[in-house]
């Protein structure tokens, strides 16, 4: 049965990413609940909740074909505002301990304490305090700097009153600043790396807005779950390559409870343990990860190894360069997956085919090409390396221990059963500028907002076991070549096809490409829970 969600109760940015809905810039602001000002802080939450953007539908290309236009109940805001809380934030706001004890361990401990198991400490550093932005670590020395609340602003590219998105964003931010101060409910925390230090700036307005800083097309795939789309037909179209794969090779939406609390999940259990159930239901958890990218180091390393690759494989430096990038990520720089085009020649042929297509069919073809693939037919990793970023972060069907072998024209078949409980929604935007003349010391990277019902089972597992370890990918201690922690012997194996006359290629001594610069675990409450928090009325009995 088609599962219809209570969209007005769910915060925006969970079901759909703002970045894809025409909100190209944003700001993240961190707040501290001032001791002795609990009531004023709740009053501020009460003020903010009236401005919070929900998942209600607004007129857009997504909704224009809805048969029932009554479902389009909202207008697109100039600035989408959302709010989330750390465990200590909920405690400071007076949420009862009896409710909070139902919160999971990892959320109670927080990301700072779990940085070691996430392997966020790299190189010669002793602790994340040496690496993270001040705003995240000052609480180690000063409890009055504890991160309690996250408020995010995402600005509409075309604000209604013809002002610029930047102006709308600044106005929304200033309205929050006006409500905060040391003698008020909450203070704005300072110590983000970039000026003016009181917020984290976000923007996709790079030279090419579809590319992240390393030059790859980003944000192609994301899990699809029941209730996420207003129309079942849209859901069934989106689910291909993004949902779960059954034994009959049918793609189905994942269970809602994998991403929203209080719903049934893939284990047929109801997610979320904080009582009352109204407090959990339609809320979720979010891992905030500020990921700095050493862009120059990345390009330099690829160029250096491309020379070796070009010599050993007898190809041009250009081909070697593109191939190494693709074999690390799992997709070519334009997003075409290696599974569909494992060699440079096949990639070029695919590009030529796409550009020759009529516009009408191109888009549908591209969506299929970019999303719809499996790994069962690539059991030796010769198309897409086992250890590539794409395969590690979403192994699709590759971990299934029972594979039906190829029969006739049908390729081998496997299911995604061991992957269905490890999916994460990726929200968030790039920040900072990179490019010629900009050093790695400057502040630029991606702000990942990872949304899932269980940070432990989904986000932390993917991070620790799949990105920072290689056992499930037959890669020993190797970590993800892109976002992994790279020790002195970090390497990445590019498998060769069994019928190829070329040996496998090993990228050795990979430097640190991505560094986490801060983050925390947040609870993203439903509008109901937000009201309970604001009114101090959470009743766990």
């Amino acid at each position, binding site marked *: 049965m088609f599962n219809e969600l209570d969209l007005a109760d769910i915060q925006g940015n969970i079901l759909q990413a703002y970045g894809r809905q025409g909100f190209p810039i944003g700001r993240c602001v961190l707040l501290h609940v001032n001791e002795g000002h609990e009531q004023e802080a709740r009053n501020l939450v009460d003020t903010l909740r009236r401005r919070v953007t929900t998942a209600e539908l607004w007129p857009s290309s997504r909704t224009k074909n809805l048969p029932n236009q009554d479902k389009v109940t909202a207008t697109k805001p100039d600035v989408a505002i959302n709010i989330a809380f750390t465990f200590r934030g909920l405690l400071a706001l007076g949420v009862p301990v009896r409710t909070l004890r139902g919160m999971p361990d990892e959320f109670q401990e927080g990301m700072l304490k779990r940085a070691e198991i996430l392997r966020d400490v790299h190189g010669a550093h002793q602790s994340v305090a040496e690496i993270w932005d001040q705003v995240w670590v000052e609480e180690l020395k000063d409890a009055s700097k504890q991160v309690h609340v996250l408020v995010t602003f995402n600005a509409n590219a075309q604000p209604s009153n013809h002002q610029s998105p930047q102006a709308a964003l600044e106005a929304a931010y200033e309205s929050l600043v006006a409500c905060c101060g040391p003698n008020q409910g909450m203070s704005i925390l300072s110590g983000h790396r970039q000026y003016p230090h009181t917020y984290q700036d976000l923007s996709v307005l790079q030279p090419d807005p579809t590319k992240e800083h390393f030059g790859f097309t980003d944000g192609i795939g994301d899990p699809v779950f029941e209730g996420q789309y207003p129309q079942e037909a849209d859901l069934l179209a989106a689910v291909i390559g993004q949902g779960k794969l059954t034994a009959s090779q049918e793609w189905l939406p994942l269970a809602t409870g994998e991403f929203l609390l209080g719903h049934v999940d893939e284990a047929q259990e109801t997610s979320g343990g904080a009582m009352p159930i109204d407090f959990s239901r339609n809320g979720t958890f979010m891992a905030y990860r500020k990921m700095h990218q050493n862009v120059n180091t990345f390009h330099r390393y690829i160029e250096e190894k491309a020379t*070796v690759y070009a010599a*050993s494989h007898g190809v041009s430096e250009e081909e070697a360069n593109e191939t190494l990038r693709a074999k690390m990520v799992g997709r070519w720089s334009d997003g075409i997956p290696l599974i569909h085009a494992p060699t440079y020649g096949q990639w070029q042929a695919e590009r030529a085919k796409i550009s020759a297509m009529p516009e009408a069919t191109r888009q549908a073809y591209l969506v299929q090409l970019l999303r719809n693939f499996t790994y069962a037919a690539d059991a030796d990793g010769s198309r897409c390396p*086992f250890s590539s970023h794409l395969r590690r972060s979403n192994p699709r069907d*590759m*971990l*299934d*221990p029972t594979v039906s072998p190829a029969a006739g024209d049908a390729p081998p078949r496997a299911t995604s059963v061991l992957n269905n409980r490890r999916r994460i929604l990726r929200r968030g935007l790039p920040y900072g500028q990179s490019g010629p003349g900009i050093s790695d010391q400057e502040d630029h990277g991606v702000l990942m907002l990872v949304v899932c019902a269980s940070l432990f089972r989904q986000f932390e597992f993917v991070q620790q076991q799949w990105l920072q370890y290689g056992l499930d990918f037959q890669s020993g201690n190797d970590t993800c070549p892109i976002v992994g922690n790279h020790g002195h012997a970090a390497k990445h194996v590019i498998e060769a096809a069994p019928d190829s006359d070329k040996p496998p290629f*090993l990228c*050795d001594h990979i430097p640190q490409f991505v560094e986490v610069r801060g983050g925390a675990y947040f609870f993203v409450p439903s509008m109901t829970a937000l009201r309970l928090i604001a009114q101090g009325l959470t009743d766990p009995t």
Partner: protein
Amino acid sequence: MPNFDGGHFFLSSLIPIREGLASSRDDTGNSLSHIHAVREILTILPTENPIGDAGTQVQHYSPPFSRDLRTHFCRMVVIDDLVFVGRQHQDAIVSAIRKINPVIPGPVDHLPQAYLAFIADFDAPDGSLQTLRDYLYGLWQVMAPELTEIFQHCIGFEHDSPADSFVKQVTDGQIETTMSFHDYYWQGEPGLWQGSPPLPNKWPKVLGLPLTTAALVAVAIFLLAPTTLLRFFLIAALLAATILWLIRRIIAVGMEPFPAAPRADLRSVLKALYLQRNFIDFMIDCQGCDSQTLQAKYLEFVGRHQPASVDSPTQAPASIPS
């Protein structure tokens, strides 16, 4: 025989811990029960070698079990008592009929005393008691101080004949291992999706003798039994006996150990890990080399790392080089 499989002995032993207080005191000067003393010692036993390859680690700090090159894994843990998991559940109607009064507490089971569980997985030629004794005497040779510290708190330790009493403590406490496991059963093709290991077809062996015998006896019954009724009873008895015999034979075949996988002993495993690690460095070093250089480098690699020599150079046990 689940204690022994695939060239590995799977030891499970429960050694009773002495009751009352130990003569020693803890670091705060407080008195110490034997159970507490064992726990303290186990907590501070080193488990990992700090340095990678054999010959380079400082012996004094080495994990004691790593001094024995037969032990793959081992665990020592104190089991105080059974954990009470609540009253035995009964259907309310059954309880009412049997007049069980739920207000009266049900029985709570206890162990007679605390036990030290000693679980180990080591290379062995067979599963005999003598093999176990040889292993234990071998352990004593390399870690007598640590074993004395632990086992003196267990019932049966004799300071006059410590080695013999230690071996007796462990062999007396041995219980059957019913779920043995190690990682070297099957050498399949490398690849992500591996099937089950190829098993020999044992059905002819299981069925052959019982069915042949049953057939012969059945013929004899038909030829010799004087009445139909007697034939019927004898055939029924024969059928029951044959089924029982088959079940016993299936269990007996199931108990047969797998043969040892080639090079599944600890020394070979360590050498394999050592070679694997160094071979990766060699591969990286050779990328793009011409064939002459490659051959020269390979000869140098073989000379330095000696793949055919199991014991040296190799990786130190209980070390996890990155």
